[in-house]
């Protein structure tokens, strides 16, 4: 095997880098999939926070679901002050949450592209010279637009455009309850060169167990086990040596 080393981005999640040869391949698109309450948004936001604080890599957080004030409040619980990062120009939060007062879309014709969303995100990437981007969550797009085939193609283009700037892109995807796929599009896994799945499974009548699985990561030898994960006072932590009791 060649000695060529892929440039990697530290995830900022203690324990996770050990499962994936040291980090995400720089400039790749990584999907973080999981059911509601599994910690997708925390993991993705922690990736941005630690990237800025520990590795001096500015980031852009595109929120399509939760309003920024709630994200900031929730991340403060882990001692992650996003306001401060914004003031320092290390983070730009793009508020595209439904809570905003925006025009009511009354009709959609199957002749559109996502160049509006692309222009917004690219503008923020340029503004802070971002190296990390998170879109949380792409599932919202499936509820916002009816034309799934157009959306799929446009999502491919959007991801390609963002990563062409050198940014490493994390997409979160919500797996609907009772569903066995990786999200509402059925193509989430193809969209990304890496897929990480989070679980919060009931293991007895009185307890649940959090775990994490690296389903695929192109260009990397990764663990094929499901590992224990916890949400601690300092955010998400993975125990690489610990196999989840729920599996």
């Amino acid at each position, binding site marked *: 095997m060649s000695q060529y080393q892929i440039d990697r981005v530290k995830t900022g999640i203690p324990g996770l880098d050990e499962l994936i040869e040291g980090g995400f391949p720089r400039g790749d698109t990584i999907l973080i999939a999981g059911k509601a309450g599994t910690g997708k948004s925390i993991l993705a936001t922690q990736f941005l926070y630690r990237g800025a604080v520990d590795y001096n890599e500015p980031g852009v957080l595109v929120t399509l679901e939760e309003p920024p004030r709630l994200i900031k409040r929730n991340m403060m619980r882990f001692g992650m002050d996003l306001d401060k990062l914004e003031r320092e120009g290390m983070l730009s939060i*793009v508020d*595209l949450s439904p809570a*905003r007062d*925006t*025009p*009511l*879309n*009354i*009709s*959609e*014709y*199957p*002749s*559109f*592209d*996502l*160049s*509006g*969303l692309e*222009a*917004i995100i*690219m*503008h923020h990437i340029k503004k802070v010279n971002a190296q990390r981007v998170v879109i949380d969550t792409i599932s919202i*797009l499936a509820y*916002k*637009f009816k034309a799934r085939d157009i959306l799929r193609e446009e999502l491919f283009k959007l991801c390609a455009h963002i990563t062409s700037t050198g940014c490493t892109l994390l997409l979160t995807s919500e797996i609907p309850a009772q569903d066995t796929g990786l999200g509402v599009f059925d193509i989430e896994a193809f969209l990304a060169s890496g897929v990480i799945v989070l679980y919060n499974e009931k293991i007895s009548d009185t307890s649940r167990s959090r775990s994490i699985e690296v389903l695929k990561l192109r260009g990397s030898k990764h663990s094929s086990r499901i590992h224990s994960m916890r949400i601690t006072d300092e955010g998400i932590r993975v125990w690489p040596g610990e196999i989840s009791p729920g599996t």
Partner: protein
Amino acid sequence: MTDTDADSNSDDVGEDTSDKIEVLFFKSDTCAFCPRAEEVLRETLEEFGADMFKVIVYNVSEDPEKAEEYGIFALPAIIIGGMSVTGIPEPEIIMKMILGSKLGTRS
């Protein structure tokens, strides 16, 4: 029709446009469907009575803040009276939006 092209930053030409219906059209440099959508929009407004409208065109490739301000992900997009439509519209939907906006402003 008072035409304000946001690209060129040309503002109103001094005429009173306060009673006109504001029509916002969003396009981008890469949007293949935008030219046709703009044609349909302008033809429909002409039929209705062009002097009733104030059309503002935003090119989000040059003015991405406007797309963010109005929450416009997909292009082309038209906003009339708090309602938006995505894609190349049928004239009927534009007419509905105009009528809706007139009803909305009547006091």
